């Protein structure tokens, strides 16, 4: 037992063995992500306890340099994190249940992770706009931290501090050379960042018999190969990068005239009675990263959220993943609405279009073949995708995904993917994104 074990047990919470806790899991604040930052979700399990009704409780805030007026609206209070963990004194105040990340960074991470590099093609509009986050400052919001630079500087520092230990040990084995002599050699002749205590210690570790192996320096140099730390690090990797605050840089946008790339993402979700909680969560887990990714890839991203059962209607993002209605399912209604919305506001000549739908593959009879597929062909888009979420494998009459897949087998702009558990999400995202890339 130990922390690794605790971590394993934590991952199992809500899964088979600990279904009883499934209701107490939240995934950070997926629903409330703002447009300009992505919150990296982390799983939180909040055991129930006697608490006050949040709304009835009210609270205390602090004005930013001035006292606000009575009656002035204030934003949604942060969840009460007064007693995180054991209330350990000294932990950084205000732990939060999510990490904010710039969508661009997220897209980069995902590219790296999945080996993708989706290059946004498409429509460009000349406009005056906020440009890339290319200017840098030493302070700024965390979401604009140039992590890559921080990493590189850390790596440089690591390289600066690193040296070929074997080679330096060999130097100590030259007859007549002690640590002092070796230190002078390292510092004056070689610029090797080794310290005197290190040399003294290394020297002590060398058995007396080996301290005179080489008669002189030339002999040693002939016998021992030197290895550049870079080569070693490339081979063995780095275990730890020394991050320093002075290396932190934050990016802020410069205002430039530039070509803008627009994207509109239509998210469609089946909200009918058969879409139970687990399926809904799987949709959220798949769609949210896709949205972030595209948001990170394009300069201007807009989203349309369509919910449907036997009818379709447009909803706000905040409601999208939570809604549940009764009734049957007619997927084509959603595509009709999507076509209408895209036609009105997002001409394909100016917008990159992505149409993602998700559901459990149940559809009313013949609707897929007679209505959905023709609509999908009709709606021009960079990519169409259908994500089937079936936690327990396929239901008998759930054939929408298969029908779509069969029909569009050779098409390059239609992806169909299946998600039956959270582990499948990454594959599904890969499947969807790599379809466009190819």
């Amino acid at each position, binding site marked *: 037992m130990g922390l690794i074990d605790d971590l394993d047990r934590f991952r199992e919470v809500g899964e088979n063995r600990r279904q009883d806790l499934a209701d107490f899991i939240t995934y950070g604040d997926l629903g409330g992500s703002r447009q300009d930052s992505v919150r990296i979700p982390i799983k939180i399990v909040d055991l129930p306890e006697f608490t006050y009704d949040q709304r009835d409780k009210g609270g205390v805030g602090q004005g930013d340099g001035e006292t606000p007026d009575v009656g002035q609206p204030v934003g949604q*209070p942060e969840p009460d994190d007064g007693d995180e963990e054991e209330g350990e004194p000294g932990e950084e105040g205000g732990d939060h249940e999510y990490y904010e990340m710039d969508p661009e960074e997220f897209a980069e991470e995902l590219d790296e992770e999945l080996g993708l590099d989706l290059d946004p093609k498409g429509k460009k509009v000349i406009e005056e706009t906020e440009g890339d986050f290319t200017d840098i400052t030493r302070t700024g919001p965390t979401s604009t931290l140039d992590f890559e630079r921080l990493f590189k500087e850390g790596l440089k520092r690591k390289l600066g501090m690193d040296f070929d230990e074997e080679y330096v040990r060999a130097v100590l084995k030259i007859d007549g050379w002690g640590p002092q002599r070796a230190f002078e050699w390292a510092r004056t002749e070689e610029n090797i960042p080794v310290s005197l205590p290190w040399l003294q210690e290394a020297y002590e570790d060398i058995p007396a018999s080996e301290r005179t192996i080489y008669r002189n320096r030339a002999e040693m140099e002939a016998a021992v190969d030197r290895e550049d730390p870079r080569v070693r690090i490339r081979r063995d990797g780095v275990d730890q990068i020394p*991050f320093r605050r002075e290396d932190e840089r934050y990016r802020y946008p410069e205002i430039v005239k530039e070509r803008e790339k627009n994207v509109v993402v239509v998210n469609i979700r089946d909200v009918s009675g058969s879409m139970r909680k687990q399926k809904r969560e799987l949709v959220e887990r798949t769609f949210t990263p896709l949205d972030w990714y595209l948001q990170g890839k394009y300069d201007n991203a807009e989203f349309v959220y369509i919910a449907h059962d036997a009818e379709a209607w447009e909803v706000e993002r905040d409601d999208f993943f939570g809604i549940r209605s009764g009734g049957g399912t007619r997927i084509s209604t959603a595509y009709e609405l999507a076509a209408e919305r895209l036609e009105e506001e997002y001409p394909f000549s100016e917008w990159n279009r992505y149409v993602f739908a998700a559901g459990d593959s149940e559809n009313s009879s013949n609707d897929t073949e007679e209505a959905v597929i023709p609509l999908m062909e009709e709606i021009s888009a960079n990519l169409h995708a259908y994500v089937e979420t079936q936690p327990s494998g396929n239901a008998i009459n759930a054939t929408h995904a298969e029908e779509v897949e069969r029909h569009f087998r050779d098409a390059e702009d239609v992806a169909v993917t299946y998600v039956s558990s959270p582990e499948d999400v990454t594959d599904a995202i890969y499947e969807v994104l790599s379809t466009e890339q190819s």
Partner: protein
Amino acid sequence: MSDDTEFPNRRESEPDIRGSNAETERDEAKTGWATADVEMQWEADRLEEPVSEAGALAEKLGLDAYPVNYWIVNYDEMNELIAYGGFQKRYPHWRWGMTYDRQQKQGQFLGGKAFEIVNNDNPAHAFLQVSNSLADQKAVITHVEAHSDFFANNQWFGMFSDDPNAASLLSRHADAIESYMQDPEIDRGDVERWIDHILCLEDNIDQYEAYRPVSPANTEREGEVGDIEDQLDELDLSEEVKSQVFDEDWLQAREEDEEHMTVPEEPDTDVLGFLCKYGKQYDEDTERAVDLEDWQADVLEILRREAYYFAPQKMTKVLNEGWASYWESLMMAGENFADADEFITYADHMSQVLGSGGLNPYSLGLQLWQYVENTENRRHVVEHLLRVDGITWRNFHDTVDFEHVVSMLEPADLVAEVDPDSLTEVPESDPRIDSEGLAAARAGEINLEKYPWKLLTEEGLAERHYSLVKPENRGYLSRISMEELERISRYLFETDRYASVEEAIAAVDYTVGWTRMREVRESHNDVTFLDEFLTQEFVDEHDYFTYEYVQSAEEYRVTSVDYKDVKKKLMLQFTNFGKPTITVSDGNYRNRNELLLEHQYNGVALDLGEARDTLERIFELWGRPVALRTIQKEYDEHHIEVARRRDREPEAEEKGLEIRYDGMEFEEVDLSWDAVEHLAATDIDYDTKPDEWLA
């Protein structure tokens, strides 16, 4: 699992920092350490001086801390410590895994941060992460010294134990629970679930009482009946009386009463303790409640003990964090503990910690401590001024030249500008001068360039850092209200009159602020601290306000900037860990050994969803049906609509409610007002909405 909970590559600096003069003997000390990792050793080496100097400075400043053992740990070890709430070993549970997961993700996505961990223990243990910058390390060290002083001196910490020995306590707990989990007779999942149930009631203890162990009542009871027989024997009654009055039936009845004696005399907030004593488990096979297994009773008591151990930290968060931030800032910025090139990083670190959004205990606490210092200093100065002939509370503002007074209060050059080159002129007998320090400095043994404070006593340092002359506080004196002036003058004895303002100011004692602060840190907790020191002046200075959810507008709005309201809301947030007060009312409810809990309603309603979920867990710990009585607020749709049209707030209707859970399903019954009236507090009102908003 071995008993050794130490890290393989720990570095311990001198166990008792204060006693060592590490400056001169660093190299020797170093050879005493195991040398697993050069980097660790360098770090330990580099920090030895800051550690010992911070300890010495803290002592000079009048702090009286537990000795602190510092450990250098790497990034992974730090994450582990954070996950375990600051300790090296805890019982196996997924909650630590959760924190660990978060910690790792934070590192992965946001890069490392300087964390500081210090444990309430004697000696205290503090951990420093090897990759932190020197400025961060120093900030952590000074912060830690002040925390340790707080642990050692605050009475709420003393309540658990004067000698907590926490690490070994928690480690023993870990071993016990681990052994249950490994016991082939016990299902590990059962233990884990049992822990979950108990954790739901973590805050339902009586944190105002010292921890006392409780064991299941069934063993105790046998003893008690025996006692009665003994007592009867002692009464030396005749056999006749005995058989007539105290016969077997009487004893039997008495025993049965004991069985039902589960009604606490007073409503008891120690729900966990009550469950320890009378809790059972529900046996599905026999469909009845049976006694707890030994391991269940033991785990229950262990977690209750941990809840009591951690309670003082939760009760003094504002006070303790503010205290540490205050002294950290004084040592780092005020005494140049941060070197010039480190200072920017330090300031950056400080602003990050203090400015991290929402209501931050660090910043609220720091501001309040500074306020305590300023107002105490002010009170003292004003007392002196009011004794000057011709100055009364009525003419105070018109008569006193505040700028002149403040300039007279400026610290003397002797303490403000320590000049290592003119030591001969320093008067040895001045109470502000540390004569040993002076002798050492004259002998060239200490570096006054770097550590000017070594020349001074606490009195000298107090003058050097006198709060009222700092740029941001120069207005304090003139800002004093007439009410306060009158109050001060009312309690003033007419002795010690001064002929002039100059004479009065010369008699000012610069240490009163710190002395007062030390008194406050001994006796207060967050609630009493806020209650005593939060004033309108403070609220105005720092722009605090209250907000409420406005039903008609369906959003949160600012409701008040009056300190009484701000105080009310803060009290709500800090009283009883910010949680509603739940008491055990009856352990024999409905005469069927059901458990009745009551919510002591203070005008703020319970979250009913959470309450139901919690009741389900309590059922597992009680083994029989459980019920909760509370008062709910209901808003009539029609009233809301009417109120909205008038731009007013609807008034809620308060109704009694009982929720009962029998292991299978919930039953909710509306109660008459009579049945819950005793739960409603009439003397407090946490609502801060302006009266004119109400419909």
